[in-house]
């Protein structure tokens, strides 16, 4: 009988996009693998994390180099939960135009939030909208 992997938890302050993204993706990938997440789940989570962290730096912090993004993750064999918080004023996700509507289809931006919602099980923007909580359930119904 194998011993289950211990609960993974991390808490990082990311102050630069490239290094922050690499740090987080590497740590999370290792934790997901240790808890038996399959390739499809790892693909989904990797994509959602990238979109969320990039949005935090680019749109939340407006690429202000004095601002950081706070990242927390908790992963076990049931689910993977993430919290990404930027230092911007926040936003109302309901105000983002639906990029799949015919009139918006050819606009080159605005698909990040949509992809996050498509690939994660639960997504919540905490008011004022500068904190994103998202969860991936390993065992989906």
């Amino acid at each position: 009988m194998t011993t289950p992997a211990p609960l993974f938890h991390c808490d990082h302050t990311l102050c630069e996009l490239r290094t922050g993204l690499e740090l987080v993706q590497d740590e999370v990938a290792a934790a997901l693998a240790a808890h038996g997440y399959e390739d499809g789940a790892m693909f989904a989570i990797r994509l959602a994390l990238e979109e969320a962290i990039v949005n935090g730096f680019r749109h939340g912090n407006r690429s202000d180099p004095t601002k950081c993004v706070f990242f927390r993750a908790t992963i076990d064999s049931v689910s993977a939960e993430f919290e990404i918080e930027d230092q911007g004023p926040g936003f109302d996700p309901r105000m983002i135009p639906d990029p799949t509507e015919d009139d918006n289809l050819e606009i080159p931006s605005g698909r990040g939030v949509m992809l996050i919602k498509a690939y994660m099980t639960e997504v919540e923007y905490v008011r004022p909208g500068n904190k994103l909580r998202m969860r991936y359930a390993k065992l989906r119904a």
Partner: protein
Amino acid sequence: MAKPSSHISVRKIDGVTRIDFLDRNILDELNIHQIGEELLKSVESEFRPKVIVVFTNVEHMSSAAYGTFMKFNERVKSRDGQLRLCELKPRVYEGFVITKLNRIFSIHESWAAALDTLT
């Protein structure tokens, strides 16, 4: 002859520009801006370019990458050209379906199938 660049390979085959991604892994935020510039450069001197982008090596695409391809598509169209995408892995193709961008791009299973649609 292939023109090596840091992220893509551009070849001319019987009047068709073939673009392959050299990165084994992913097409992500960290390199997408450079890829976008390289893509635009690949057709800058062409009139009515016929371009097929081969996704064999691509395992991941971010929303920034979709935007880059949309701009490239516009550039090709502005030169009265044709752009085809082919050999997408199922998960990468799924992203095009989720975003409904499969309605914007002409996507094909293989190089040969994409080639057949060029006029």
